[in-house]
């Protein structure tokens, strides 16, 4: 076991795997005075009521910008363990954002517009280059149009919401790959 030299980078890598593997709930590592523990669990007692982890693929999770529909699963099978997919989908934590990426999220609950007016070309498209002041979309909050900016130099990597769809507070809207 000589070669088990665990450095901080290794722990970082473990942490990264954990982030990528949403269904892994706990990792613990204990060696030679080192004690390392990561958990998604809100500790043991809580674990009982915490819902099963939800869809982790950004494509899956953000494909539904609509609010989280719970009812189907619960109604259909009250006796069966149901982990309503898509329920708490849209919060930031569930999309893995790399160091060189920036996630644009909804600053308020409202309606997403990809273009300045209906029928006009979208502000940005996937793959398009953006600058910090580039307007990437509009969130309408009670008739008030709020421009969202890219904030970084980079390129639009993914857009998670469809035009004119409602978005929750904090819902991921698009991913900017920084340059």
């Amino acid at each position, binding site marked *: 076991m000589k070669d088990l030299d665990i450095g901080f980078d290794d722990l970082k890598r473990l942490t990264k795997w954990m982030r990528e593997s949403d269904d892994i709930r706990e990792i613990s590592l204990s060696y030679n005075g080192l004690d390392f523990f990561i958990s998604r669990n*809100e*500790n043991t*007692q*809580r*674990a*009982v*009521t*915490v*819902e099963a982890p939800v869809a982790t693929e950004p494509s899956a999770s953000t494909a539904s910008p*609509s*609010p*989280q*529909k*719970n*009812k189907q699963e*619960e109604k259909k099978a009250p006796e069966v363990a149901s982990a*309503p997919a898509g*329920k*708490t989908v*849209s*919060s930031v934590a569930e999309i893995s954002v790399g160091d060189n990426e920036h996630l644009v999220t909804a600053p*308020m*609950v*409202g*309606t997403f517009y990809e273009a300045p007016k209906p029928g006009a070309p979208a502000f940005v498209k996937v793959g398009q280059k953006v600058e910090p002041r580039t307007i990437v979309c509009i969130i*309408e*909050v*009670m008739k008030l149009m709020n421009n969202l900016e890219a904030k970084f130099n980079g390129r639009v990597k993914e857009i998670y919401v469809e035009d004119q769809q*409602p*978005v*929750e*507070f*904090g*819902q991921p809207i698009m991913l900017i790959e920084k340059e």
Partner: protein
Amino acid sequence: MLNKIKSVMIANRGEISLRIIRACQELGVESVAIYSEADKDTLPVKLADTAICIGPAPSQSSYQNQEAIISAALAFGVDAIHPGYGFLSEKADFAQKCEENGIIFIGPSADIIGKMGDKIEARKIADSASVPTIPGSDGVVTEPKRALEIAENVGFPLLIKASAGGGGRGMRVVKSKDTLEKDLNEIMSEAEVAFGDSSVYIEKYLTDIRHIEVQLLADGKNCVHLGERDCTAQRRNQKLVEEAPSPALGAAQRDELCQSAVRLAQKVGYKSAGTVEYVFDNIDKKFYFIEMNTRVQVEHPVSEMITGVDIIKEQIKIADGQALEIKQEDIVLSGHAIECRLNAEDPENGFMPCPGTISNYRPPGGFGIRMDSHLESGYKIPPYYDSMIGKLICWGGDRDEAIVRMTRALSEMKVEGIKTTAQFHVELINSEQFKSGDFNTVFVASLLEKKN
């Protein structure tokens, strides 16, 4: 079952959100919960048909954020908003915004909320509806002579309040006629010096009172009452235990009280569920109007348990434009119900709120038990909101049975990991005075004093 309303957004959290979700589900309408980031993993979010995050934890940015809520309602296309209690439930401007944006506000109109929210206006309406109000000046008195006249009519003890005062400043109790003129002169000149305004209110000073309120349902045309609730067991004006019927009222006075509440609601064409609050003077055995709450109240289940009427469902049906199906003669009061508010507070330490994580939760069960709570094992009580974590309501064939059942249920219940008021409730409801039914609003304070 409903005509206009196909979806209801519940602009609240915790147990009342859950309560309204359940009503929506039974009415077959879509329930849309909103939640702050702090409430993401809570039962209402899990049980609602749809759940929308509307902002960060602080309620100013979420549950009290009118813009965010209206925006969410518009973006997600809901038909109606139920405000629950607290938060935006009695904000006339919020009701107004709903109306302007074509969203049905489940409550009375902004106009009525405004009127009833104005104490002086509400008192005027009460007077005009022949609802007894606390004897005193109908408004400010500026003339010392007039003040003297009024005071002599009101009788003693009485209370003189500088109209510019507040928070206990510029108030004086006058015990007898002997000192009236002197007291009146002094307080008026003090008020002149302190506030530059010598005008005062005069009011009968009540020292031994109960708090009794009447639950109403009105559709704008017809109005029925569901009897009264007695909320006398309070600590620092916070209700702790509510019950129905009130142990202080006989049938005749109950009828008189409830009829007066119906008159008040009829006077303003009230339309929704609502509560008319009274003080009941233990000394002269009379009740006086204080205010009207234009929303559903925390303690509404107590009335549900003795009448069988689902107040929230009725409220939603009224908002949907339906006429009340229930007639007054259909409402029969049966048995006795008591509610204990379960707070995450430490009764041994001045009722200090103590948020934390519920490591183990076991709701009580059995015949006559209803636990309205969003608790679950593992639930983390956030520090941002009210310390009430549930309401335990017990029904019994009579008051004695309701008390023993409540005692049994409180003992059966398990809320581990935090301090709660459960054991304090056991002591409260089993005190000789509570059991006797003969107590007033300071009873809890004296019970606490005796304990220490």
